């Protein structure tokens, strides 16, 4: 498990550093790239938790699609090359305080609720059902317990597409 811990902290560090850069970077495209780093590291954390299918999904959808969407959005709104001082509100300190406060509260609650020693992760976190693979297990779950949300997702996506087309079209 040592290696896992090492990797956990490594990825956590990447996540946190990149996330901070996402919200502080002076360049929108850089921010988007830091977001890629966050997402990739989060995917790695998923792998550590043996949720390989979600990890792959994270790469396919988040990195492969949503980031591209972001980059398009950025390029379509004419981001400037180089840094841009205007990206952050002047009252950022206030926001930082809020965020810190929030973290204090949450952190306290978490540590309080889930004592370190009481909540070690199971040794083998792989979730594999009869079919023998993580994806099949996910599928089984979707097609039994979560059938309705699954169909709802499709409707939701449809709505998103219709909405976005209506919005983005030149009239």
């Amino acid at each position, binding site marked *: 498990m040592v290696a896992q811990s090492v990797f956990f902290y490594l990825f*956590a560090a990447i996540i946190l550093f990149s996330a901070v850069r996402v919200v502080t970077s002076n360049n929108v495209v850089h921010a988007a790239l830091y977001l890629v780093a966050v997402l990739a590291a989060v995917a790695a954390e998923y792998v550590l*938790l043996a949720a390989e299918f979600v990890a792959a999904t994270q790469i396919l959808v988040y990195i492969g699609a949503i980031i591209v969407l972001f980059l398009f*959005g950025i390029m379509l709104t004419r981001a400037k090359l180089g840094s841009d001082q205007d990206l952050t*509100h002047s009252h950022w300190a206030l926001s930082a305080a809020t965020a810190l406060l929030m973290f204090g509260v949450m952190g306290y609650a978490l540590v309080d609720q889930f004592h370190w020693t009481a909540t070690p992760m199971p040794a083998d976190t792989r979730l594999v059902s009869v079919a023998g693979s993580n994806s099949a297990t996910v599928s089984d779950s979707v097609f039994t317990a979560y059938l309705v949300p699954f169909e709802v997702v499709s409707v939701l996506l449809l709505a998103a*597409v219709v909405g976005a087309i209506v919005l983005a079209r030149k009239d």
Partner: protein
Amino acid sequence: MDDLFLNQFLLLGAMLFCIGVYGVLARRNAVLVLMSIELILNAVNINLIAFGAFWGSIAGSVFALFVIAIAAAEVGVGLAIVLLIYRNRRSVALDDVAEMKG
């Protein structure tokens, strides 16, 4: 320390969440705000997966999938709105469009 603990993941999630919140509050650029929201959603997903792994339930993964799907829809619509704003105002700074909120 040999083991991974649930709390590690939860705290990581919490930190990411708060960074996201900071981003949402502090950023002026609408695209950046959307990115910050992605951070928040990822924080949520970390928690979901961690709990799922902890309890030995696949539901965490499934929910994470749904969250990703919803995130996709959210970004899609969000960016469409940003583009609309941009087209009308040539700017994506959020306080320039404060009247939108009202």
